[in-house]
């Protein structure tokens, strides 16, 4: 009973660490969690295979580690993911686990992050207790090109990321590294890039709950900065020859938009083409004197819109970025403008 009285009931951030097989996720975890105050981070590890090697490697630095036993988290065991998350949360609330501040989920190298996000966002039990933190994707600088060409999961992981961490930079030359960074920026211009050796123990950049969680001016500025950066580059970027059909579209709308009309259009688009909309991000002006609304989605999964406190500056235009595969950007823009004009009449 005593323990219960001390428990706080705030929702906990769940950050997702993903990256292709052998990209160095466990090494990064060890470095990130080393020297951290004990019991601040609960770790959930998903591995393919019977023996949880990663589990053993990190258990020294993260005593609250839990292992998801049966294979890939992306499809077959979403029920187990839910159960494991709820178990962690319940034990914390009951005082049987320390009151950790965050959960870190390390996925298998083959996982597509979208179903994980769907589980967190749509499950009626989970969404009241947990919120999505950052999606951190590790990219192996040496093998990035090969993985990109061979494995569709690699692309899903890269495009879903809030932060891209490039590992094994010491094993590649500067020119190749620069090319990899440029290619990644083409595939996901909204993600910030970091080299793995720059990550320090308890790195705030990775432990911060992410823009979508916060509502202060600083984060509104971050949202706008990212979206403007994309808007100021070529409005419709093709990524590269390997994924010639991966395109980035940036749309700026001068006038405030009707949220209901926009919601109708976007829900239709994600229903029909969610598998081709790898990533979307936007800051919307939904009316005069209204605070901005931030939107963010991966494939079919859109997170609940987030009300930011206020606009960071005098530019109150809506900005949207879509990273698509196999969709023509001009089609999306024409469709949006047609819907908004028609539904407003």
């Amino acid at each position, binding site marked *: 009973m005593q323990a219960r009285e001390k428990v706080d009931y705030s929702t906990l951030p769940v950050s997702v660490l993903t990256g292709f097989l052998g990209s160095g996720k466990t090494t990064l975890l060890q470095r990130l969690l080393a020297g951290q105050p004990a019991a601040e981070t609960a770790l959930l590890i998903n591995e393919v295979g019977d023996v949880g090697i990663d589990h053993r490697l990190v258990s020294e630095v993260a005593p609250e580690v839990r292992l998801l036993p049966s294979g890939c988290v992306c499809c077959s065991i979403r029920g187990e993911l839910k159960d494991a998350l709820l178990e962690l949360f319940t034990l914390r609330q009951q005082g049987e686990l320390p009151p950790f501040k965050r959960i870190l989920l390390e996925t298998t190298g083959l996982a597509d992050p979208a179903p994980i996000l769907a589980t967190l966002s749509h499950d009626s039990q989970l969404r009241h207790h947990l919120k999505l933190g950052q999606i951190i994707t590790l990219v192996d600088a040496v093998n990035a090109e090969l993985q990109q060409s061979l494995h569709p999961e690699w692309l899903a992981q890269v495009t879903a990321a809030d932060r891209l961490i490039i590992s094994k930079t010491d094993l590649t030359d500067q020119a190749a590294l620069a090319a990899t960074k440029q290619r990644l920026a083409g595939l996901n211009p909204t993600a910030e890039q970091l080299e793995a050796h720059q990550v320090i123990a308890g790195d705030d950049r990775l432990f911060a709950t992410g823009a979508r969680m916060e509502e202060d001016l600083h984060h509104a500025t971050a949202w706008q900065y990212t979206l403007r950066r994309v808007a100021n580059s070529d409005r419709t970027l093709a990524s590269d020859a390997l994924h010639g059909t991966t395109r980035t579209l940036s749309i700026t709308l001068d006038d405030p938009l009707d949220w209901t009309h926009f919601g109708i259009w976007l829900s*239709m688009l994600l*229903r029909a*083409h969610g598998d081709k909309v790898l990533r979307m991000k936007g800051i919307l002006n939904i009316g005069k004197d209204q605070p901005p609304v931030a939107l963010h989605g991966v494939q079919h999964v859109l997170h609940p819109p987030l009300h930011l406190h206020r606009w960071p500056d005098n530019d109150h235009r809506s900005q949207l970025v879509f990273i698509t595969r196999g969709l023509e950007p001009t089609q999306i823009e024409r469709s949006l403008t047609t819907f908004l004009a028609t539904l407003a*009449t």
Partner: protein
Amino acid sequence: MCGLCGLLNDGSHWSDPLASTLPARQLRYARLKALNKVLTPYRLKLTDFQGSGYVLSSLTGRQEMVSNIDQLWRTAETLSGRTIDPLDPELLATLENHCASA
């Protein structure tokens, strides 16, 4: 679940109206009107049901209840026998004509 009519409510959807100065019922009808503009080219009609759900009807009299917008698009595809695609040039042309004649 609604205790009176036994309808299941599957919770909020991201596209639900955000904070507004308009009463909830007015927002609901404004949304219904906008949805019907999109559904008309598919020969479908959406009507309110008890302020908690919707009924989607086809011209042949087939009816289905829907409770949220994701379910609406799925059901619309079933009743119309067509793919509901906002990028469909034919749909966009119809909407543009509607806009021009309004």
